[in-house]
């Protein structure tokens, strides 16, 4: 039954694409997936999911990130929460470029909210890697989707890189905004470089958890409600 559902969804998507694409676009699309160019509707969906992801992210990060230990804990909490959103997003669109655009816009916003350029750079790299993983699974494999999401989650580490790279300067900058105690406590966490390896691992693992959770929620609610 599940199989039938997916097939009909695919047909629906294919007709939709024919309807909305520019005539020249179909030729350019690669042969991996039928109708694999992003249509107007997909682009709008990217905007919607990016907005939801960002609002939920802010709603979680602001109360949690105000405390030094919470800032560190965000690397575990963030990927789990947005797992539900991104997994639905991946399952809904299944086209090359969707994750990259989402994380690129996210990174742009982070850049101008004071997280520095590293969040954008690392976000682009991890999102590209995630795109390749999705592609390897032909956008259908659930396992690879979860792995791709976990890979993209590593971008969260980008928010911490400034603590190490800019060193004392950045500590001063944060001290000016959040108070010295906060800055010193956090700088203490990042004094040892191995913390980054740990953070990458934590992000990846909680990304996996978030992806699995997201897929479970997807099966339980979204698929049953027929919104994909």
């Amino acid at each position, binding site marked *: 039954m599940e199989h039938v559902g997916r097939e009909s969804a695919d047909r629906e998507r294919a007709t939709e694409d024919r309807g909305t694409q520019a*005539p020249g676009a179909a030729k350019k699309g690669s042969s991996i997936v039928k109708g694999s160019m992003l249509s107007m509707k997909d682009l709008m969906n990217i905007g919607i999911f990016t907005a939801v992801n960002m*609002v939920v992210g802010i709603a979680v990060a602001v109360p949690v990130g105000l405390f030094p230990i919470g800032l560190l804990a965000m690397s575990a909490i963030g990927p789990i929460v947005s797992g539900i959103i991104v997994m639905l997003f991946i399952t809904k669109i299944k086209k090359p470029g969707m994750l990259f655009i989402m994380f690129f816009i996210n990174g742009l916003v982070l850049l101008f909210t004071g997280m520095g350029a590293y969040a954008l750079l690392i976000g682009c790299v991890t999102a590209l890697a995630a795109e390749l993983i999705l592609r390897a699974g032909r956008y259908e494999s659930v396992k690879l989707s979860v792995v791709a999401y976990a890979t993209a989650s590593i971008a969260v580490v980008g928010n911490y890189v400034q603590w190490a790279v800019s060193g004392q300067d950045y500590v001063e900058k944060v001290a000016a905004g959040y108070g010295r105690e906060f800055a010193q406590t956090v700088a203490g966490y990042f004094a040892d470089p191995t913390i980054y390896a740990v953070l990458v691992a934590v992000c990846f693992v909680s990304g996996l958890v978030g992806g699995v959770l997201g897929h479970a929620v997807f099966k339980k609610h*979204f698929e049953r409600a027929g919104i994909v």
Partner: protein
Amino acid sequence: MRASRQPAAMGEAAVGLLVERGEQREIPLDPRTKLFVVLVVSGIMIAGDGRGALAVVQPVLAVVPALFFVLMGRFSVAAKYACVYAAAKIIPPLVIACSEVGALVMAAGIVGALGRLLPGFLMGYFLVATTTVSEFIAAAERLRLPRCLTIPLSVMFRFFPTVVVEYRAISDAMRMRGIEGLKSPVAMLEYRLVPLLMSMVVIGNELAASALCRGLGSPRRRTNACEIGFHGPDAVAFALGALCLPWLVVSLMR
């Protein structure tokens, strides 16, 4: 204030990118100029650390959002902003200087941080509230931004208020059912995030249908009803913004 917000209002007349209430005066600036000014000001205000020359530049630039809100005719917003910003600038250093209590210092730091973010948020609000979707897309086309960036961006801005309104409604409904607090985070996720995503998907489908009906996916070149272009005020704004560019670089790099 809450009553005047329309829940998930679709098919609004073309007002700002953000659905805006009440009347406001037009700002005689090209959207590209506004974007430039917003990026410069909020970049310096949010990313800057307030040391060295920035100690002078930041308070000066903090006037810019207030100025724009005055020009928009939203005097009360400008006045409130001025008070809050002044308080956030003056109170935390006093607290930190006088007190040794950890929690108090931390709280002062948080207030200071909010004060730092406020001008940037108001600039962003100014941009999305005074630029129509049509103007935004026209400007983005002139800037040669690819469609795969401009469409998600404009939809995203359009959706921020919708997400918040929908989330509030869901929160209210869940509170009535007694699902609240942090006793069970997973249930919180499931009972709030899932309905939110459901309604977002539905609203998104409606928005897409309406946009496609109006020819968004058409292969023809898009024409614009609104005229955008650079005039005198733009030159002034650009000149002033360009003056601040070195500090933007300093703020972002450090």
